[in-house]
């Protein structure tokens, strides 16, 4: 699972009001190279929760992202160093084994072979 997906995922248990962001317990992280596309990153930037992304990247062992959300100007500028970092964090880091933890209930969603198991028990629906 990439961090772009983690940034979209929230806990879906009934009654949980603040199920985002899910904490990452990483056991195995792998990197896969993906083509760099600045247009896509600019398009996605508005939708990304920066704090959650920076924190998630840190828990995966990548601490290059700043804590505070950068200005839109940095994103639009021709300088690609920042976009490269964002690209790496969003699309190239994969959580292979580990777990996602709901911030409110502490419920663990295990991640196996890169697939998070988001199935809920009957009493959580």
């Amino acid at each position, binding site marked *: *699972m*990439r961090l*772009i*997906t983690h*940034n*979209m*995922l*929230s*806990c*879906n248990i009934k009654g949980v009001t603040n*199920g*985002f962001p899910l904490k990452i317990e990483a056991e195995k992280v792998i990197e896969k190279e993906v083509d760099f*596309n600045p*247009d*896509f990153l600019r*398009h*996605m930037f508005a*939708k990304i*929760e920066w704090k959650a992304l920076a924190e998630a990247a840190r828990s995966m062992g990548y601490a290059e992202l700043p804590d505070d959300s950068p200005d839109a100007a940095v994103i639009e500028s021709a300088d690609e160093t920042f976009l490269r970092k964002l690209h790496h964090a969003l*699309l190239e880091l994969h959580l292979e084994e580990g777990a996602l933890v709901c911030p409110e209930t502490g419920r663990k969603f295990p991640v196996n*072979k*890169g*697939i*998070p*198991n*988001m*199935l*809920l028990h*009957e009493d959580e*629906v």
Partner: protein
Amino acid sequence: MSTRPELLAPPEIFYDDSEARKYTSSSRIVEIQARLSERALELLALPEDDVPRFLLDIGCGSGLSGETISENGHHWIGLDISASMLNVAVEREVEGDLLLGDMGQGLGLRAGVIDGAISISAVQWLCNADKSSHEPRLRLKAFFGSLYRCLSRGARAVFQVYPESIAQRELILGQALKAGFGGGLVVDYPHSTKKRKEFLVLTCGSVPTSINDGHKDSDDDDDDSEDEENGMVCVSDRNRPRKKQRTNKKGKGREWVLRKKEQSRRKGNDVPADSKYTARKRKSRF
């Protein structure tokens, strides 16, 4: 298709390891899936500006439909309830991210982040109650409600469905409309029972433009097509009241009687002549 897989077992059990492998190694299914996903993407009508979009593939299975999305240069998340199917997808090294989840439990995604959703032959599974806790109506409601939330404004969702019956189709459409979606059904090859394919095209949060190109040049039947798009079918009331008689306390009045007499005369009946007594009210003491 003589037997429907939906009727045999729940999806997470039906698509076990052997069935998942069979599904993906059948060249016929692969070809059909590719064609369906191609068409679904076309109906999704993403803006053509070469910017990759972030799409959702609901019931992605082994990633056959996701491959088409990747070929078109978009990123995607796939959701499926069958772990075996997802394992096959991992083996095939699909590019999207995979989630093991049940769409009937709602999608746990943040609001407004997805640029579009497709689903190939999956939503009809929701119409079955596979466990005692399952209630198809509620599961459809949870699914469409959460989908509506996570789509960005103006985004579309395209579902290719095989509804079993008209009632099932109406159930799916009805729940989608209740969740706030606009849109309707697009039918390919309506004349053929085998090739016939139904696509549910839903738009989120904006005034639906023309659903398919055929609607563009037909201004006259705007009202009809709008009804079709909204999935509303005019059904006349079964026990409608008898022809309402326009009577009030005063009776029908002299004018009405005169008109009726004139009508009868024109038919050639023998009708008494009109006089000052015609349609005169009787005194109350009578």
